[in-house]
């Protein structure tokens, strides 16, 4: 309930972070679902996401978007991220019109996602809410690092690499935007938001 959930940050920062995920239901509607998932990605790509990917192929930071959405398999999970809610609304309108029958989840600020769905003529069917991180939280990195690393729900973006990028930005050897691109690469499924990461990296480096 999960890999696009648990993203940490302020409301203001999270207002530019909306991951979308699509997957067919195993044993119910997955047979022949690959092209439908590909169509989902094609629609998303048309509206200008900041990242896009397929869990079995990789993200646009490694491969060409067209190649990804033309080679989607039935049993994969596909993703993209938008930094603008208006674009999400446009995607949802197109998806409703296309009626692909593909299950889709939208993550982001609960009230904003609900409003966006209503504008697109959709209603939220099932909600998953994060109650945060429990257990031995002394093992966690700092808040600044967590706000970036939690944008890859599979933890492919290491806290050490983020720390190194912040130091390099401080030294002036890399820009926050280039550093964010470097961090986006290990996140194979394409839900890491490089636009938001660049903002957070610049903020952390300025401290």
């Amino acid at each position, binding site marked *: 309930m999960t890999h696009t959930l648990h993203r940490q940050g302020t409301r203001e920062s999270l207002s530019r972070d909306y991951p979308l995920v699509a997957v067919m239901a195993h044993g119910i509607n997955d047979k022949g679902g690959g092209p439908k998932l590909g169509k989902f990605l094609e629609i998303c790509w048309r509206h200008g996401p900041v990242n896009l990917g397929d869990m079995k192929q990789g993200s646009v930071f490694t491969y060409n978007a067209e190649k990804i959405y033309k080679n989607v398999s039935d049993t994969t999970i596909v993703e993209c991220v938008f930094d603008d809610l208006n674009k999400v609304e446009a995607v949802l309108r197109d998806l409703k019109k296309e009626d692909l029958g593909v299950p889709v989840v939208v993550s982001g600020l609960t009230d904003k996602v609900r409003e966006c769905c209503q504008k697109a003529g959709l209603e939220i*069917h099932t909600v998953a809410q994060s109650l945060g991180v429990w257990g031995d939280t002394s093992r966690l990195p700092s808040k600044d690092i967590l706000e970036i690393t939690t944008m890859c729900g599979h933890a492919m973006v290491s806290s050490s690499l983020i720390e190194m990028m912040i130091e390099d930005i401080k030294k002036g050897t890399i820009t926050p935007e280039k550093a964010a691109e470097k961090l986006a690469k290990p996140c194979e499924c394409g839900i890491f938001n490089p636009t938001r990461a660049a903002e957070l990296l610049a903020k952390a480096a300025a401290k």
Partner: protein
Amino acid sequence: MRITEDCIACDVCIPYCPVKAISMGDDIAQINDDECVECGVCFRSGVCPTDAFQETPLEWPRIIRKVLSDPLVESPDTRVPGRGTEEVKTNEVSGRIKLGWAGIAIELGRPGVGTRFTDVQKVTMAMAAMGGVFEHENPVTFWITDQKTGKLREDILNEKSLSAIVEVAFPIDKLKAAIQKLQEVSKQLDTVCSVVTAVKVSPDGSFSTDKIFKELGLTPYPNSKNNVGLGRPLFKFEEVS
């Protein structure tokens, strides 16, 4: 994963490892096998100038590290990549979380710490003691030997993964006690866990968990994950309510 003699000890790979399992040895970089979760980040990153990372064939029980740590790998049990579960993503079609029920997903080791299965077992046993129903289409459930006690296979207990999701459902009137039990057991963990609840949204748009969170003094994150009901064919929820 192993590092071959081609390593030139340049150390550029070290910060890429999510669990800090790579360090510099006397001559070349080395991987701590016990800490490595086989996620493949070092191998796929392409940062090694001499391609010294080499994936090694994995046997049971070490293979579970890869299944639960490398998102590109499909679970052989559920045929789902990622961490091996569809959870709420397909609920409008699968009917996985029914009306009047709540799902809890406890993702041990997340964010970025990793978990041993000794910790996973603490949670499965606690949830079993509360009468939770384990989601059968989840890889961790396949490794539970007794659903009444929540005990896991002995041979996996010392294995480690980047995370492992325990997915369990309760009737909504049992959710409060289940969360309290989880709060209690989380204090005994040597790792962290990210906790989620999931419910089907009521016809009036409300969430049946709101009152329970309030009673427990819990505030969910402002961001949530929302199934927007576009999947087909729709599951007929009213038939099982």
